[in-house]
């Protein structure tokens, strides 16, 4: 199976995501100005500061030509993972509900945080144990998840919150400690923490690998089902 990692001008964690994906499958970069997704089985919209994050994080990137194809791919059920800036882009593109606001501290924060897996099933967290804790770094200035109350209730009710910051680990003031959510269909995940920076014991933890491994297993099962 093959991952495609989108590269915008200003993407920073694109190569990191590529390497992480290569640990569980094949991977290649997808250029922002290109509409062709090269037949990949899953798309990663990586972290960084696409278009400098000017105006609002993710606001300009969502209009890149590649994003039209990503949106279509998502509508057809393709797996799309948005990490950090990628999460912001997916929210701006309305592929995910809600929005990301500036951290309550108003500062960039890098921190190794603990995440609680809120739902250990489906394409992104299927390889996790229910209630499992993952140690994964966050690094962002605009990561406070916001949605109106009724929408938050709906997200909770439908099990779309896949990852929460463990108690005491919320680094940005996200409502209901939300770290990662998926869309209703469950095939698009956005999260602020960086699983691609938790895949090598030398440079940190390896808990992030679970996300990529879950995607791999899900896609393999799907292939087998045909």
């Amino acid at each position: 199976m093959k991952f495609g990692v989108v590269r915008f001008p200003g993407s920073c964690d694109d190569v990191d995501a590529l390497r992480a994906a290569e640990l569980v499958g094949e991977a290649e970069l997808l250029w922002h100005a290109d509409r062709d997704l090269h037949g990949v089985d899953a798309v990663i919209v990586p972290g960084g500061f696409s278009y400098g994050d000017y105006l609002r994080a993710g606001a300009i990137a969502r209009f890149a030509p590649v994003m039209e194809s990503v949106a279509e791919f998502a509508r057809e059920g393709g797996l799309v993972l948005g990490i950090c800036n990628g999460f912001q882009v997916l929210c701006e593109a309305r592929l995910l509900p809600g929005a990301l606001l500036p951290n309550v501290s108003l500062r960039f924060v890098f921190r190794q945080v603990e995440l609680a897996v809120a739902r250990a099933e489906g394409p992104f967290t299927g390889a996790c144990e229910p209630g499992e804790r993952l140690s994964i770094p966050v690094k962002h200035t605009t990561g406070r998840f916001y949605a109106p109350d009724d929408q938050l209730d709906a997200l909770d009710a439908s099990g779309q919150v896949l990852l929460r910051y463990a108690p005491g680990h919320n680094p940005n003031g996200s409502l209901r400690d939300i770290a990662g959510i998926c869309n209703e269909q469950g095939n698009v995940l956005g999260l602020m923490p960086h699983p691609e920076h938790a895949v090598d014991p030398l440079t940190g933890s390896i808990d992030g690998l679970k996300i990529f491994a879950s995607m791999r297993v899900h896609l393999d099962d799907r292939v087998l089902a045909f």
Partner: protein
Amino acid sequence: MRARVLVRPKAGILDPQGQAVERALPALGFTGVSNVHVGRLIELDVEDPAQLPQMCEALLANPLIEDYEIVADGPS
């Protein structure tokens, strides 16, 4: 035409920037200031001002979290 777009956080959404300003002012000796909000100002020359609302909806503001106001500013 020269136009201004004022973008502000929607009422009820936490505005830490506004709060930070509000907290900093008394320390500088400015009292009697309240209800501070910080938003964005976009100024631009536009040939067809009728396009402005769409521009705001599509790019300049995020309607989920922000309100916007368009102010015509006279000829550019």
